[in-house]
């Protein structure tokens, strides 16, 4: 076929109607002319007409040939079927709305969940060649740790497989912008930090090689977010200086917007404002404190295994520099994305995706059921078409096209729903989602939604299409208005039973997750005070150069805050509960080199009273425990137990242990400290599933620091007290910002992130699927009731009470529900391996959860069945009998 004809045939598609009309006109004109001629030859009009028709030959056959030849036939049919499908949907708007809504729910939920799965798990990290970015850890016998300044510098010097190797430390700084103190989050990084991520500055430059050496000029790179929000997008930003903690820094670059802007640990609304060079001081190199987090970019073609070997070799070369007690520590190189996306997140996402696919399957089953029921009513129409010569293939194609129209309309509505869902849900998610993930309704997600819509169309349409098209024409035409056959009914019951089973699995999962969430919420954090607000208060060394200055600042602040009416007590400590704290090694003078890793927390005398930690033995800190006085420490009950286990210390109060005394200039010297008391346990780590850790508290006045946390206990509403606290702080020092203001409840909520979201998500999906299954049951029962109307009428006319009829109908559905429940319970048991890893202190085979899920599903199912059944029994017997 020539190209010209192919084009002509395609063009014919859009002109199908006109071409058809023209052909009809031509045929009519032809016959008229032939008739005219025949009359002229002397035939009478009737004979002339017959003669013309005979000479012309089969008109319809010719037209079919014409149509086949003039255009691409299957496309023409498709267009016709789509039009027909749309028209038939318009004829039954209620069916159309229900069907599209059910599909929109299923496709929309799937699209929304997929957008998260895609952003977090499937897309590569938003950096060039992200597979070359790695994170390095020191591995200890009990886990992983940051590295020391000395190790970082010495290892970096010996690595061969890295293009760039940088260390980073999170820092905060108070900047004065527009006369107001603002606390900014930032990072101290090696000069080549941006080479690791392969990100170039948007304005200006990144750090030069020598700029991370001690004594270099104070330079600063700011993030796009900071540039826009803090500096109003000033185009001449590179000529500006900004004072951080009182020290002037020259802004040399602005990074582009994107993943680097976001805070890595608590991305909720927070962003990184600045990067400043990490200049390692001689003190830091000597101190041996593990505080650096190295990231690196591998050379092209280097595998993780190669990098690991390289790192181990470098570590072996510096073995002499490693203290004896850390000899069995090692080093680990891990892909950066593996650090961001841990197993729990991965599992949660796949479980959510699995759950939402189940919801979609239920939606499909429901729609297939609806189509079957509708098909029963359409059997006559189909039979007629088949009698008129439509082939079975042609009928299947037509019916499938109708479901395709439904699927695509449902998909369209689903995408709109997904957009709305994402707008509502994404602001709630960031805490649980890694900083690199940008969740958006992008082309990939739209392709996914389209594919889902297509698959759904096939799933939904195939069974009804096969069933309908196979119905014998004669049978259907004779069967008359009774429509559906018993076979239809059985299939529909099987489908509904499957819906019940799948819903049960989801309900069971969500009960388990909620029970687990409740257990987590009941975990004792140690904080017993109801109204506690915490906040960061950072002071600058420029104004507080000595330890005494800092201690005096704490004292003035506490005095002012406690003077606020409604405040019961206030305190200054190194960290707030649940937000982490540093670790140190504890030794005893008697046991030599044996070390116990303990959490190390600075606190003032009021800390324990403020958050409600009782001192169970000995005494608490006093104002007299300060720089210059004898070193003391308070331990928690967990540490008392650990001391007993490790050192056989049965009565720790009064004993002496060896802990680092941290000077105001970060210098650390190990000092003997006397244990003066034991306090009740407090949770310092945010993972509520983890064991309670042993903590050694030291008086903050013996280890003063610039960055502290204020805790305020009040009788009033916590929100109401914050302005007064801010005012009190301004009175003490108007250049210090009150930042990270959070109540203890909020801290607790934050610690539940990653646990809370899956529970709610699966809960919503379970509710949705139960609702859909109920709809399905409702449909089946009302359909079978309408089929049995005559029987019901006769029974009631013969004196059956409506209660008896009702129970007869409901009994017939109970089998379906019961079968669904049994299969569902089996499914839930089969999935325990998946669910167990997401549960806390709840068995995946928890009998309560299984029973609760079965009861809920039974109630939902029976209710859905009773409504149409009850309606049927209220019908007047004579009406029912006449309806046939």
């Amino acid at each position: 076929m020539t190209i010209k004809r192919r084009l002509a045939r395609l063009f014919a598609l859009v002109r199908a109607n006109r071409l058809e009309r023209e052909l009809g006109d031509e045929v009519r004109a032809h016959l008229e002319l032939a008739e005219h001629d025949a009359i002229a030859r002397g035939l009478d009009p009737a004979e002339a007409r017959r003669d013309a028709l005979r000479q012309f030959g089969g008109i319809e056959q010719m037209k079919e040939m014409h149509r086949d030849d003039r255009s691409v036939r299957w496309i023409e049919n498709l267009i016709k079927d789509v039009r027909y499908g749309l028209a038939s949907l318009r004829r039954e708007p209620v069916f159309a709305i229900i069907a599209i809504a059910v599909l929109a729910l299923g496709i929309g939920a799937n699209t929304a969940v997929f957008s998260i799965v895609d952003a977090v798990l499937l897309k590569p990290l938003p950096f060039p060649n992200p597979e070359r970015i790695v994170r390095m850890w020191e591995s200890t016998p009990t886990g992983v740790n940051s590295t020391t300044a000395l190790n970082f510098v010495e290892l970096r010097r010996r690595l061969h497989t890295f293009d760039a190797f940088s260390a980073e430390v999170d820092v905060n700084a108070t900047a004065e912008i527009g006369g107001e103190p603002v606390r900014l989050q930032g990072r101290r990084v090696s000069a080549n930090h941006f080479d690791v991520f392969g990100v170039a500055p948007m304005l200006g430059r990144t750090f030069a090689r020598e700029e991370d050496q001690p004594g270099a000029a104070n330079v600063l790179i700011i993030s796009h977010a900071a540039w826009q929000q803090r500096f109003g997008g000033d185009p001449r930003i590179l000529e500006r200086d900004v004072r951080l903690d009182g020290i002037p820094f020259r802004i040399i670059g602005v990074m582009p917007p994107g993943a680097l802007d976001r805070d890595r640990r608590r991305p909720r609304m927070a962003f990184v404002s600045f990067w400043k060079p990490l200049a390692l001081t001689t003190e830091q190199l000597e101190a041996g404190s593990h505080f650096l987090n190295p990231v690196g970019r591998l050379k092209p073609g280097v595998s993780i295994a190669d990098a690991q070997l390289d790192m181990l070799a470098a570590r072996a070369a510096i073995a002499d520099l490693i203290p004896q007690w850390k000899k069995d520590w090692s080093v680990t190189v891990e892909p950066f994305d593996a650090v961001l996306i841990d197993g729990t997140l991965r599992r949660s996402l796949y479980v959510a995706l699995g759950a939402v696919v189940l919801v979609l399957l239920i939606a499909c089953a429901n729609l297939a059921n609806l189509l079957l029921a509708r098909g029963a009513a359409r059997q006559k129409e189909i039979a007629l078409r088949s009698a008129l010569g439509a082939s079975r293939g042609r009928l299947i194609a037509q019916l499938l096209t109708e479901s395709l129209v439904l699927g695509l309309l449902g998909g369209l509505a689903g995408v709109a729903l997904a957009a709305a869902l994402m707008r509502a849900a994404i602001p709630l998610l960031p805490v649980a989602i890694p900083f690199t993930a940008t969740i958006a309704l992008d082309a990939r997600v739209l392709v996914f939604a389209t594919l889902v819509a297509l698959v759904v169309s096939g799933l939904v349409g195939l069974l009804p299409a096969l069933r309908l098209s196979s119905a014998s024409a004669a049978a259907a035409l004779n069967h008359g208005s009774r429509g559906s056959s018993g076979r239809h009914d059985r299939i529909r019951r099987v489908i509904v039973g499957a819906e019940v089973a799948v819903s049960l699995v989801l309900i069971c999962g969500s009960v388990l997750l909620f029970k687990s969430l409740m257990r987590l919420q009941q975990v004792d954090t140690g904080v017993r005070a109801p109204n506690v607000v915490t906040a960061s208060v950072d002071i600058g060394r420029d104004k507080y150069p000595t330890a005494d200055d800092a201690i005096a600042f704490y004292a003035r602040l506490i005095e002012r805050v406690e003077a606020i009416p409604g405040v019961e007590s206030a305190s200054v400590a190194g960290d707030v509960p649940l937000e982490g704290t540093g670790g140190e090694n504890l030794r005893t003078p008697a046991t030599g080199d044996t070390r116990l890793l303990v959490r190390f927390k600075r606190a003032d005398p009021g800390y324990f009273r403020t958050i409600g930690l009782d001192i169970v033995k000995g005494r608490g800190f006093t104002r007299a425990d300060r720089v210059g006085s004898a070193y003391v420490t308070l331990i928690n009950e967990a540490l008392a137990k650990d001391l007993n286990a490790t050192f056989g210390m049965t009565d720790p109060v009064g004993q002496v242990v060896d802990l680092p005394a941290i000077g105001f200039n970060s210098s650390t010297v190990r000092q003997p400290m006397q244990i003066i008391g034991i306090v009740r346990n407090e949770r310092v780590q945010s993972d509520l599933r983890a064991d309670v850790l042993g903590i050694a508290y030291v008086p903050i006045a013996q280890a003063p620091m610039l960055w502290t946390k204020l805790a305020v206990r009040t009788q009033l509403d916590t929100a109401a007290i914050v302005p007064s606290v801010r005012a009190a702080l301004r009175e003490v020092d108007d250049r210090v910002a009150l930042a990270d203001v959070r109540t203890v409840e909020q801290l607790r909520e934050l610690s539940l992130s990653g646990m809370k979201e899956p529970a709610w998500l699966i809960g919503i999906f379970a509710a949705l699927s139960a609702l859909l299954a109920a709809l399905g049951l409702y449909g089946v029962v009302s359909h079978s009731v309408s089929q049995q109307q005559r029987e019901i009428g006769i029974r009631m006319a013969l004196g059956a009470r409506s209660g008896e009829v009702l129970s007869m109908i409901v009994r017939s559905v109970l089998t379906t529900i019961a079968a669904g429940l049994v299969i569902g319970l089996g499914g839930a048991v089969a999935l325990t391996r998946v669910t167990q890893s997401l549960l806390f202190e709840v068995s995946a085979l928890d009998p309560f959860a299984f029973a609760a899920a079965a009861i809920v599903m039974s109630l939902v199912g029976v209710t859905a069945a009773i409504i149409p059944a009850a309606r049927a029994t209220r019908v007047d017997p004579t009406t029912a009998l006449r309806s046939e």
Partner: protein
Amino acid sequence: MSNIDMSKPKADLPYGTLDLLVLKTLDTMGALHGYSIARRIEQMSGTLRLSQGSIYPALMRLEQQGWIATKWGVSETNRKVKFYSLTRAGAKQLHVEVANWEQSAALVARILDAKA
């Protein structure tokens, strides 16, 4: 549905020759409507009995190839009707097809002669 297969000509019209006959007719007669073309082919062929309707798919194919052009006109019975005429490309195509036909006819004739 009729049992008589009328989509094919009653006398054996070699495959593809209908197109040639249509082109030739238009070449000789100028613009004609469908009925006249069918009548003309019937008259010229004498014995050949054509299902007249079968020229319409042929006309459509030739039009899509660009070998004939259509124009709306008015028939003897005062009806709007399509008139077909040969295009320049169609005239060229006719030459090609006539040549092809003669060549194959000569070939067949030679083979038949040889056998006889």
